[in-house]
């Protein structure tokens, strides 16, 4: 076991964690932050996307022990039920959600994309979400939802 101090969505957590546990399983099983999903567990699908120290990463490919001292953002920290982020609101309006399993990862990827590239072209959006699989929508509505926010001035993405 290893002691881990990690800030998640602004809150500090101190836990003992099994050294072979992935950050994804730590978030879900130890902290109950189940918004982050496990799809493939092999870095292919992007359902587990989080932002760690300002950089988007697949949390199934990170060990919890590595996150000691890190600042992490998960979907639970993006907006609230009463006040959605601009991206979440846009996903809602554009019907960019069907089964919803890919949505948290997609939101985290798009949040990071818009921080790096506030006004991405359609091609940049497609490249940006390349690592997030959606088996329902065919991506069209997701791309439109991101485009909509990217076109808006002062987006809160």
């Amino acid at each position, binding site marked *: 076991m290893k002691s881990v101090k990690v800030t998640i969505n602004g809150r500090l957590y101190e836990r003992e964690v099994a050294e*072979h546990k992935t950050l994804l399983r730590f978030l879900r099983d130890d902290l109950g932050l189940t918004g982050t999903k496990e799809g493939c567990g*092999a870095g292919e699908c*992007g359902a587990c996307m989080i932002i760690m120290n300002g950089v988007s990463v697949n949390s199934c490919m990170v*060990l919890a022990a590595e996150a000691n001292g890190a600042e992490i953002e998960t979907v639970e920290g993006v907006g609230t039920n009463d006040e959605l982020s601009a991206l979440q609101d846009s996903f809602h309006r554009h019907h960019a959600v069907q089964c919803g399993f890919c949505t948290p990862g997609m939101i985290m990827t798009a949040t990071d994309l818009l921080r790096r590239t506030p006004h991405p072209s359609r091609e940049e959006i497609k490249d940006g979400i*390349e*690592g997030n699989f959606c088996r329902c929508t065919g991506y069209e509505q997701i791309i439109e939802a991101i485009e909509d926010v990217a076109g808006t001035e002062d987006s809160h993405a």
Partner: protein
Amino acid sequence: MLHEFSYIEPGSLSELLEFLAKYGPESAVFSGGTDLLISIRAGLEKPVYVVDLKKVPELQELNFGSKSGLSIGAAVNVNRVVEHEAVQSHYRILEIAGRELATFQLRNRATVIGNIVTASPCGDMSSPLLCLDAEVELLSASGSRSMLLKEFITGVKKTQIKPEEIVSKITVPTTFMDAAGGYEKLKRIKGHDLGVVAVTMIKTKKTMRVAVSSAAPTPVLLPDFVLDTPVAEIQKVAQAAISPIDDVRCTKEYRRFMVDIYIRRLLEEVQHERGAA
């Protein structure tokens, strides 16, 4: 769930090398984990210790000098290389091929050296680095040795590395600096995928170099070509040098076919590019 292991996080090079001198055979060296964690999860590797390189300052170094060339430390991720100014201006082929490696998020984790040490025949960084005559430095508690990447990779997922060693850095000399170049990779889908077959070509004022991935047990660097070598000649040399297999991703015939196509396309592409050194 992953098989149980201990996570070791050395803070200095000497601490790391001493640990590997003792426990090398039971250890897996870890940085991005994009290959290792998959292999552990699949039960293909069962290390007792997973040894993280990221806290060793020297291994995070990424430097360029106009005489010394480019030096990439073991813990440097692919995005740092792709976004580095000197890479974008002097070693464009590394940027082009690097952007084809997995996804942006995986490139935030995956390292260039990890891609080399994994020694997969389809590694996106190996064929460009072969074309550039890259050299690897191996370090252990008892000393260091260097060799050309060409000699380092010996087979499918096989290299000359010993259990007590790490590849501390890879050095790209200035020989092919500012070369024009291109990378063509066949994938099964439009998004990110492992290469089904890939070809790298670079061109300087004097010579052209071609390397082929996923078409033999190791990436293959062809002998140098003079500038106006006809496309058919390059294709002939390439076909003789590769030995593709049928697998889940495609047939050997299709691999051979696409190698010819890519050589023709890349030749047209590099001939139109200006500013070849």
